[in-house]
């Protein structure tokens, strides 16, 4: 064991431990392929240690600051680059959790996430750099902005006088002791990463995932998939999507490499699979739909894939059959799980003979809980339903996160103790059928107003809150349309104020929401149709859209 990685000797206690263990085994092995560059565990280790020591040396947190208000988190602003990978590891080497920020998100949303996270340091790549002035200029709290890819940061520093900006030179100077970096112990209950998911009140909800949670997940996955250093894992997900943690950290846990397609390579995912020799494919079903529409799911198209894994939205049977034929040497599994339960917490192995008879609504079952996780299916009063009946899925166990970031009210609403139970369970909001006998659990849809678009979780309430605000109306209704077996393709918003400039509303919505949440259309209705409870009848609105075809 190298003295530089002493926490690699113990079982995984923090998210960085698997990386350190693989680095100890073979520092020359390739950890990441991105934009035509192959980066070794050794090179990444050096860069992360330099970042960690620099962040410590230039710590903008004052010693007497309350840790409640200045949490041990570092933001990483960028995408699909060497810089963001180094930033994530640099944060973890420092003992911080990381907060990914996405340059494809609207500036205002990114600023909100950064402010709410309480991060005082941000590591940027060239994509994040382009937006940082707009994001940070109105933030009053001084930030440390680190640009490891940039030598000259004078212009940026002048544009952001309130903040401290450092580039590669200062990083080298401050990180002179990088070679002496030693891991400090990390509290397993500390946050490993903080992500923001769509929230029904208009504000994204922060979900802090503890090292303890994600290590339980990685241990299960490493055992199940027997990943070796020869494996190449795809990274189709953005870092703001928690499934990206699977790709990066499962690869590093096992000494394998993660292959990160650029935005251009993501346009033609099938080509990327073959050019990169992907052996473990993991995506949302929508990516497979995209491949199908691009005529990229031809039989035997992807012979190198040995695991085909899907998660993030409902998985239609026809799609899995097509993908299984395109990747005939692979075992296909459907994973299920909300961010609050750490990436995925149930799974189902596809069997072409048996599975169609076990499926429901044309969707592949979500299967059984992971080791350490437990599921119950309950009615509206949180009482367990009988086997074979349907209800809301509640889960508990080692992967259940501590709750929403600095939001006790939302945490109390979603993390509950059901009648007759002593333990806290997370309410998934997903409707499932309670298994009967040995049958797998099947997913039947949402119990609330949340939908999936291209695998992203979208609270329609968040879209509605925004449009109530920008249209200055009392009611705005968002529906997912066209409806697909996996969720919906996009969103249509209805408002009832005839004087509203619908085009301007749509443009404003697009400017303020991530692409997948922005409505494809904003429509006017004279009066909203109501159902028997006096609530807006969303089904009638959908029927109206369907009728127009």
């Amino acid at each position, binding site marked *: 064991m190298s003295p530089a990685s002493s926490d690699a000797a113990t079982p995984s206690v923090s998210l960085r431990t698997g990386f350190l263990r693989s680095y100890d085994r073979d520092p020359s092995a390739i950890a990441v392929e991105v934009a035509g560059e192959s980066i070794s565990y050794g090179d990444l280790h050096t860069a992360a240690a330099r970042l960690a020591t620099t962040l410590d040396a230039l710590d903008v947190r004052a010693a007497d600051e309350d840790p409640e208000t200045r949490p041990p988190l570092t933001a990483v602003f960028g995408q699909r680059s060497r810089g963001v990978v180094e930033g994530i590891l640099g944060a973890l080497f420092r003992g911080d959790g990381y907060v990914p920020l996405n340059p494809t998100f609207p500036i205002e949303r990114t600023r909100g996430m950064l402010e709410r996270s309480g991060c005082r340091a941000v590591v940027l790549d060239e994509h994040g750099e382009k937006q940082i002035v707009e994001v940070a200029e109105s933030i009053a709290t001084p930030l440390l902005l680190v640009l490891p890819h940039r030598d000259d940061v004078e212009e940026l520093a002048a544009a952001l006088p309130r903040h401290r900006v450092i580039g590669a030179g200062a990083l080298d100077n401050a990180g002179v002791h990088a070679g002496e970096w030693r891991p400090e112990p990390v509290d397993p209950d500390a946050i490993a990463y903080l992500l923001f998911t769509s929230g029904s009140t208009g504000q994204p909800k922060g979900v802090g995932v503890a090292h303890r949670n994600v290590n339980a997940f990685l241990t299960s996955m490493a055992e199940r998939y027997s990943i070796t250093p020869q494996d190449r894992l795809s990274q189709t997900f953005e870092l703001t999507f928690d499934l990206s943690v699977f790709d990066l950290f499962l690869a590093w846990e096992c000494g394998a490499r993660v292959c990160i397609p650029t935005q*251009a390579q993501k346009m033609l995912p099938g080509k990327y699979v073959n050019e990169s020799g992907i052996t473990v494919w993991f995506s949302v079903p929508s990516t497979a739909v995209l491949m199908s529409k691009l*005529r990229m799911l031809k039989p035997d198209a992807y012979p190198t894939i040995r695991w085909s894994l899907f998660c993030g939205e409902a998985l239609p049977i026809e799609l899995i059959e097509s993908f299984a034929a395109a990747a005939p040497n692979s075992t296909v599994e459907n994973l299920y799980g909300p961010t609050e339960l750490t990436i995925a917490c149930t799974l189902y192995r596809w069997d072409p003979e048996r599975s169609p008879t076990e499926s429901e609504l044309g969707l592949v079952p979500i299967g059984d809980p992971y080791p350490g996780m437990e599921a119950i299916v309950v009615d509206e009063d949180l009482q367990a339903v009988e086997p074979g009946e349907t209800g809301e899925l509640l889960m508990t166990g080692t992967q259940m996160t501590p709750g929403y970031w600095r939001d006790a009210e939302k945490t109390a609403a979603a993390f509950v103790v059901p009648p007759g139970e002593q333990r806290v369970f997370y309410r998934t909001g997903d409707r499932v059928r309670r298994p009967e006998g040995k049958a797998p659990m099947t997913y039947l849809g949402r119990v609330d107003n949340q939908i999936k678009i291209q695998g992203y979780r979208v609270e329609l309430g968040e879209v509605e809150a925004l449009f109530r605000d920008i249209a200055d109306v009392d009611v705005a209704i968002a529906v997912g349309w066209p409806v697909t077996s996996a969720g919906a393709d996009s969103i249509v918003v209805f408002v009832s104020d005839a004087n509203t400039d619908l085009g301007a509303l749509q443009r404003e919505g697009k*400017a303020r929401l991530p692409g997948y949440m922005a409505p494809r259309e904003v429509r006017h209705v004279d009066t909203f149709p109501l159902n028997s409870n006096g609530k807006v009848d969303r089904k009638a609105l959908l029927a109206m859209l369907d009728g127009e075809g």
Partner: protein
Amino acid sequence: MDQKTIRDELRGWILERSGATPDRLERDDQPILDEGLLTSLDVVEFILFIESIRKEEVDIEAIEPEVFNSIDALVEAFFAKAPAPMESALG
């Protein structure tokens, strides 16, 4: 359809789809993917749009991902045979 019209059509589609204002895409060599003006969520409809204006199916297997990097790259990959714009008589 000449190349100028094609470029205008492509720009119009990308701006409408992304909801971006015209000043976000003033030049034909601007990186449309890196700036988030076009994403993988758009690719199927975008290719259908390209097929509709070039009146010919796109051979997906024959193209490289980099063709989506900019309007210049798109025109070169999909519309190389289109005529150059007519010079103005008022030139």
